[in-house]
């Protein structure tokens, strides 16, 4: 059997974490080989080792039977490997053609031969049925198109094996289909594809081999047709997953948040939010679903005072908070778990305690006449760490030492204990391991049961379905559909999310 890649006993350690633990993996030539595992299982690290971005602490790599040592991506590329990363390796201000040839730009008379680059791009694009416009500038392109450029780049460098790292994360269902078609074309052209994902249905759709990683170790490698999604899930998590308890139905109460005709511009001058109307009541979770980049972020930032509003109104408990500062809005009764927990939701260079008392730092009893009362601050922090089960070496440890899940718990602990009537929560479980994800969703439902009004932004359809009372789909800045989880399906939501369908303006379905 011809193997494109063989990994023998690969081990890689980072400070505090054993990312890859004696990994043995063989990828057959011409296969579509899926690599699954939950966040933190070591998939990306392993691929980065193959691509030459990291050196393994021990173990060896063979490409087409030949033993190799990669010191940098250059070596990997020279050996026929190509990789499409989760965050793209494209220079935003360059055109598609310029990005494609980056590293081996064609030259004419010493100057960059733009015409040649564009021609090369066109040819490749036709050959692999990946439509791109060579002249367009990358930062204007949709994510799906950028991904196409990345794939073309890898092919341009003569890759025989293409590694795709979580490629479907930001794609619409339609774009995912296009990607799968591309993969089929690649395989027909005798390329090998390695596909990293944690979406199990994708594994079943496109791969013929699958390897499961858990906590840095390989659990097993099997032909895809011999496993079910449940088998994979069990292998990924290692224990029987309890079914998610059903939500209790509760009565909704007063209107807490009301948004009328909201128009918000984005940083580039176009309209990110167009004429949105919505309301959220006590005791319900209203979820804004949709592909990232359709205005959800701007909407949330507009509500929380972090982004200017062009026109329209936002009312919180009847009071007009349009355009007010974050401080004033929070005082009216809003708490916010932001989508970016690292740059916005917390301060990594401050301690856990300092992160927890943020915003309360001015109030008594934490502060008296400007002086901080350390004893009370520490007691409060310890209390929250206990209640929310935050794993940290001490309350004075820096926030940067926390894992993603625990950092999010800090944010949630701080925000949810403000007892604010309205909670604005954005992508709360993104990048978290399964245990933390479950925990946060349980807390979210608990807050709702206690009568809070919650507006949630999520791109995770699992989360959307398990947690929402009402679902609003956003597409290009507008609310194009309103649903309840019982009365809709993923496919239906998917159609709305890509703009293939829209409802006429309908008032809330209670």
């Amino acid at each position, binding site marked *: 059997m011809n193997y494109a890649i063989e990994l023998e006993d690969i081990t890689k350690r980072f400070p505090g974490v054993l990312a890859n633990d004696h990994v043995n993996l063989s990828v057959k030539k011409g296969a579509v080989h899926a690599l699954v595992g939950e966040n933190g299982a070591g998939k990306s690290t392993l691929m980065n080792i193959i*691509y030459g*971005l990291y050196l393994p602490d021990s173990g060896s790599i063979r490409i087409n039977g030949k033993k190799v040592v990669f010191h*940098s*991506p*250059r070596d990997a*590329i020279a050996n026929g490997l190509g*990789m499409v*990363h989760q965050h*793209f*390796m*494209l*220079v*935003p*201000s*360059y055109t598609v053609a*310029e*990005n494609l040839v*980056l*590293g*081996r*730009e064609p*030259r004419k008379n*010493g*100057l*960059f031969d733009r015409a040649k680059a564009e021609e090369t791009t066109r040819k490749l694009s036709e050959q692999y049925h990946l439509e791109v416009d060579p002249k367009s500038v990358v930062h204007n392109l949709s994510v799906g198109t950028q991904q196409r450029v990345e794939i073309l*780049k890898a092919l341009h*460098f003569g890759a025989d094996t293409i590694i795709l790292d979580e490629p479907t994360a930001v794609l619409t269902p339609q774009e995912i289909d296009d990607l799968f078609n591309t993969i089929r074309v690649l395989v027909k052209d005798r390329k090998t594809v390695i596909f990293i994902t944690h979406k199990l249905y994708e594994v079943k759709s496109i791969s013929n081999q699958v390897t499961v990683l858990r906590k840095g170790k390989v659990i097993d490698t099997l032909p895809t047709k011999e496993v079910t999604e449940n088998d994979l899930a069990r292998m990924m998590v290692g224990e029987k997953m309890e079914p998610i308890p059903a939500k209790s139905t509760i009565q909704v109460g007063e209107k807490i948040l009301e948004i009328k005709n909201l128009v918000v511009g984005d*940083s580039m*001058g176009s309209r990110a939010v167009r004429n949105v109307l919505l309301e959220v009541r006590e005791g319900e979770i209203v979820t804004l679903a949709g592909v990232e980049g359709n205005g959800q972020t701007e909407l949330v930032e507009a509500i929380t005072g972090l982004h*200017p509003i062009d026109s329209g109104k936002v009312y919180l408990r009847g009071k007009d908070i349009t355009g007010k500062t974050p401080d004033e809005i929070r005082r009216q009764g809003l708490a916010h778990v932001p989508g970016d927990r690292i740059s916005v939701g917390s301060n990594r260079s401050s301690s856990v305690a300092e992160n927890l008392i943020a915003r309360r730092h001015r109030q008594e009893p934490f502060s008296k006449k400007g002086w901080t009362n350390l004893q009370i601050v520490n007691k409060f922090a310890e209390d929250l760490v206990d209640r929310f089960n935050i794993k940290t070496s001490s309350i004075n440890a820096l926030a940067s030492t926390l894992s993603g899940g625990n950092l999010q718990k800090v944010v949630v602990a701080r925000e949810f204990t403000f007892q604010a009537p309205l909670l604005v929560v954005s992508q709360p479980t993104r990048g978290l391991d399964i245990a933390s994800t479950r925990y946060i969703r349980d807390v979210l439902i608990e807050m709702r049961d206690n009568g809070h009004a919650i507006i949630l932004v999520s791109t995770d359809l699992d989360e959307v379905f398990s947690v929402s009372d009402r679902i609003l789909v956003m597409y290009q800045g507008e609310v194009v559909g309103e649903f309840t989880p019982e009365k809709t399906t993923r496919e239906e939501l998917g159609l709305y999310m890509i703009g293939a369908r829209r409802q006429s303006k309908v008032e809330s379905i209670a």
Partner: protein
Amino acid sequence: MEFIEFLTELTTYRAVLRIMTPLLLAALGGAFTYHAGILNIALEGQMLFGAFAAVTASYYFGNAIAGVIGGILAGLLIGLIFGLFVVRFKTDEFIVGIAINILAVGATTFAMRALFGVKASFSDPGIKPLIKIPIPGIPSDSFLGILIGNHTLLTYISLLLVPLLFILFYYTRFGMHLRATGEHPEALETAGGNTSLIQWIASAINGVMCGLAGTYLALGYLSQFVKNMTAGRGFIALAALLFGAGNPFKIFIGTFVFGLADSLSIRFQSLGVPPYFALMVPYIVTIIALIFVSARQKKRYTM
């Protein structure tokens, strides 16, 4: 009235071109590291090292060419030191920049005292200045001749570099790699490029050009070295660099405006305005220009 006269005289612009030269050279040098993603605030210190080396070399070897070479070598050396700390040791470029600026004043003054025995300035007929070169084919008293004839070689070089570097930055492979290094180094790395090497090269070129700028300061006017003679010009060059966002043509405009202000201040002095007052003009103009430019940029983004 005087002011209008001033603006319409050819000699004014001739003076501006001369004053601009060190600013332009330093700012264009800074553009290399700027595009490579490093903000080098040590243009000032690098210029000063260049100035001192130029004077010393010119004095010891008895000719201006030696001075130029001395300035280039000193600039190269200090540029590489900057590269060493910023690229290799990954020290914060801002700290290294400040340290170089302070070191420059201390080291050049120390060396001036140690080598020449003088405390505040060193001037001597043994220091050979840069010679002015007429442009063949353009008579010295024609319009063009007055404006751009009979300047030193460095002035001509600085002017030629504007279009040349524009082509280099935006139309050559090196330029594309350079800008990619600054904008998205991982993209270049994963495509097989070497961003560290590019940053080293940028630091070295930056150093050389600042060395040339300092050489011009020392040997282009009065052939002397004065303690701390750059007097903030490196920061004016930095302002021009930021103002032009690394685009050589825009940098040219920036240094032109500042050069005009500097020239104006000299004019003011001859009109009886107290010298210290007049000398403040270029710095004030620079600050105001920076404020205006940023105010306009901000407006563009919030529209």
